[in-house]
């Protein structure tokens, strides 16, 4: 009897331990996870959650515009896994791509990487519609000002 209760407890416990993350995994939205990843990576910057949310909404509309369903599903699975496994941009190209895209879609680099200023989303960055946006280039740092 004791043994049977023990096994039952272990069984229920295992089920709970397994089910809760899987449940959370499937219920947590991709956009919510993406926002959390961005805010976590850039925790030392002044970013309102709503700024990251606006970016993520626009980013995924564009990102998945012509993507196959399998590619979308694969992306979602990978990003969610990285989130639950606590990967950051040094562990994952996908997370790095997301964070970089966010920063390039804000006024952060235009403000010369001033970490004391609030970071505002300024619209999704696309180098083909907004060329010459290399915030480290001679246009932003002319040689005469660097010497």
């Amino acid at each position, binding site marked *: 009897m004791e043994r049977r209760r023990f096994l039952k407890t272990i069984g229920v416990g295992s089920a709970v331990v397994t089910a809760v993350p899987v449940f959370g995994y499937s219920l947590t939205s991709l956009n919510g996870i993406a926002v959390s990843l961005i805010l976590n990576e850039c925790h030392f910057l002044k970013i309102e959650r709503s700024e990251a949310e606006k970016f993520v909404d626009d980013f995924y509309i564009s990102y998945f515009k012509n993507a196959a369903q399998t590619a979308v599903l694969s992306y979602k699975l990978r990003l969610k896994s990285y989130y639950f496994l606590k990967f950051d941009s040094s562990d994952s190209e996908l997370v790095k791509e997301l964070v970089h895209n966010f920063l390039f879609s804000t006024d952060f680099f235009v403000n010369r990487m001033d970490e004391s200023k609030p970071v505002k989303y300024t619209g999704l960055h696309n180098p083909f519609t907004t060329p010459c946006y290399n915030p480290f*280039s001679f246009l*932003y740092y002319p040689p005469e000002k660097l010497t």
Partner: protein
Amino acid sequence: MKYDKYDLLVAGTGPASTFFIKKYLSKARASVKVLVLERGDFYSHADRLKKRAGDTSHYKKAASKPRINNEERGWAYTIGFGGSSNCWYACTPRFLPSDFRMKTLYGVANDWPISYEELDPYYTEVEELMSISGPDETPFPRQGSYPLPPHILTTVDKVLNKKYGKLYISQPTGRASRPVNGRNACCASGVCGTCPVNAKFTIENSNIGVYEDPRVEVIYGAQVYSLELANNVVRKVNFIQEGKERQAEAEVFALGTHAIFNPHILLNSGDSNPFTGKGLGEQYGLQAVVYLDNMPNLGGSTWVTANGYMLYDGVHRKDHAACLMESSNSPEWIRVESGKWRNLISFRMIFEDLPMEQNFVSATPEDLLTPTTVFKGISSYTERAVDNMKIKLPEVLSCLPVEKIEYLKPFGSESHILGTTRMSADAKDGVVDKNLIHHQYRNLFVLGSGSFTTYSPANPTLTLSALSLYAADHAF
């Protein structure tokens, strides 16, 4: 087709074909007839840009890449008018004189049948036609200044340039440093495949008058798949257009389709040269990300700002390959760390490789339109160079406040397909002679980087373009 027979028939409209035709036309009589068969369509820069910006383009389907069996490497190229000038990043360093003499100097592979000195005036001519931007001091011999001033180095590049002089230079490039010839100046957008400001040289924006010449007729959507050979002479080409088999006749033929499709056409035609298709190769590359202590890397005026030659030439090439460094000024290289955003420099480390039998192009039985490629890997000569580079790089960068160096996974491809119709002094060592004429079929030129005898780490387009000018100048 306007005529039953042409004086010259060229397959392909990329740089190899275009510079060949350019020189031919400059020497030919006013009445010559030139037919150019282009497999793809005319897919304009404006349309490419539209698609990149997220709009739809009706050329999308026509621009897709054709099938290659076993394409493990993901070879990069573009089908359509202008060929790979549409997707190249316009890096145009010359080869070093030693690159042409690997056997004599280092006992490795073979010497080219052509020397740097013979090619020098044709390098200069291509640099003029492409309006190359570059510095006065270079590691390769060169007379006079480049057509355009050099691009501006970054703060970190300047430190390396100060230490190494002409071994660390502003990269010679077809990304214009000033507005020129209908092109704008490069502004370091970092997406050169389709330049958003039309700054890089392409065949479309070249303004060199080849395809506007009334002697030239271009047919689009025409895939050449074989040649009709008789008595060591090419009589006709066989091609498919809109699903129909067609033929065209000429006195002289030139294949400029690229280093996978050129040998495939030869193999389909029954060419029995043992080197045709063999030695399929390219360079090998990986990224070295160098984290710097309190030293921001800022102010460059183009995508690749510099080339480093510190690990390129020397007696080490008896044992291991040359390595060319490319300093990347792409905006993607940032550190998401407080106060350290741009405290890094990222180098693409590019290694030469050797032609190897195990890597080749072959015909595909019962499918004349699809080549098969087999690429089993790089040489141990190149592998040793990668190991050596990792030992030497900290010393090379000792003038910088290096925190750490991180090596990323090697790239699948360097986008340069080489060596499948190699150039040699005679038929026992290769497919074409120094004028790019097939050793057996003397009215057939086989153009492009397939002709390279060895695989320098330097980017190939400038050299293959100079070879086309040289070939046409000496053969006609």
